[in-house]
């Protein structure tokens, strides 16, 4: 367990979403349908691979004073290109994800991997790290979206699994689960479950409660 493999470590042990709590915005916004979550996962993984590869290739040439500007420019360009491809070849999915594809730029996870891994490691490690982190992010997104779509709409990837009451079936759709806050609850439960399993992920409390002063007997 001491060797950190760039591909497998980010899956559970150092999951970008569950441990580092990065990229929560898309995880809240688009996980009410499994299809959206899968496309978002794929788009983010591709962006990660492109940005990690390019940043790792030019890492020795970059003056440190402008490295963040260059990283963000590379990420923003990759996201724009991916967004254009989605709009051309998967127009329905792009319409459903709307602005959230463009918002991958602001996903701290992409910049975090460019700065935290690609600026230090060779290209091969950086690509493996990008794939690993992409899969780790996708794993959480898919688990959350699976539950939200099934409980919220009784369907999976648009296919009706349970017939909802509103269409004459028996399944009570849970509207709360289709709203963004429910993703917070599910991610919270996932984080709790992972940290119960992997004790080393638990954080030290930021501060300890001050013990109440004892009542002194006079």
């Amino acid at each position, binding site marked *: 367990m001491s060797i950190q493999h760039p591909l497998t470590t980010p899956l559970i042990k150092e999951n970008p979403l569950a441990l580092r709590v990065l990229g929560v915005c898309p995880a809240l916004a688009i996980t009410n349908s499994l299809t959206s979550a899968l496309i978002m996962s794929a788009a983010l993984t591709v962006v990660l691979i492109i940005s990690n590869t390019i940043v790792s290739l030019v890492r020795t*040439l970059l*003056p440190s004073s402008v490295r963040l500007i260059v990283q963000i420019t590379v990420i923003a360009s990759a996201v724009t290109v991916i967004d254009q491809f989605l709009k051309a070849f998967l127009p329905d999915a792009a319409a459903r994800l709307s602005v959230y594809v463009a918002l991958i730029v602001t996903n701290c996870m992409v910049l975090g991997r460019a700065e935290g891994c690609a600026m230090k490691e060779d290209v091969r490690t950086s690509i493996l790290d990008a794939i690993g982190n992409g899969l780790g992010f996708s794993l959480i997104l898919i688990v959350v979206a699976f539950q939200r779509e099934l409980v919220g709409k009784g369907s999976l990837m648009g296919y009706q699994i349970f017939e909802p009451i509103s269409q004459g079936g028996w399944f009570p759709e849970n509207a709360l689960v289709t709203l963004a806050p429910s993703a917070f609850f599910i991610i919270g439960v996932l984080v709790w479950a992972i940290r119960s399993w992997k004790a080393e992920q638990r954080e030290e409390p930021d501060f300890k409660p001050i013990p109440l002063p004892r009542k002194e007997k006079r």
Partner: protein
Amino acid sequence: MTKDSPIRALLTVLVTAVVCSFFVSGSVVLLRPIQLNNKLLERSGNVLALTGQLPAGGEIGDEALLDLFKSLDARVVDIDEAELGSEFDPYTFDGRKAAADPELSVAVPSAEDIASLGRRSSYKTIYLVWKDGQLDRIVLPIRGAGMWSMLYGYISLESDLNTIAGVMFYEHNETPGLGDQIAKPHWQAKWIGKKLYEDTDDVLFHVAEGPVAAGASGAEYQVDALTGATITANAVTALVQYWFGPHGYGPLLQRLRDQPPQKPAEAAGQES
């Protein structure tokens, strides 16, 4: 020149900007035709679904869909003048741009502005369906402010220009599970056969406050409420009442009722 010198930093940024803009603009330019075709396909599907001309199974190739769409009699109408035509080409006219263009749009008086439009285009792209030389259906675009954003859709009317033949909303941002029912087929199906007007110009049609009983008085002017989405339901009522009222399509529809339009000879030739 050291690695951290300002000149080197400037050069790095310049090279990055040029290379990245090359890739970004390249992808935008190369993919634009495919994206425009997607938009046209989407609009074709939306409009054709309301003309009743799609095959029953709904399976139709993209080419056949476009052919069918181009066979429709599309017109850019002038709703201020109640004219069934204008100088604009229906395939290139952009109603959304026109709504923001002071030359092509009018401000909606605040007393009339129940659908919170602000301005609306004077010109609208509508679609006519002919049958045996007579008007069979008319498909009209509608929009109005919903709970979170503008709702965009189409309504089609039967030849009496009063009975609703179908409705659809193709763009909205209503609350998932509540207001987004406006885009669900089972709710849209309830609109079919409902009526807009009785004897006067007043639009009686509205979304009810509960389920509509079949035999109840006024049932033919109502559709079922949207559970938990009162604001969306009121928005839908408002936009229908605006667009079919005196400031919307009302005058045009009145004129079409008074002087039934004839099928243009050119369109007749195309169809045969």
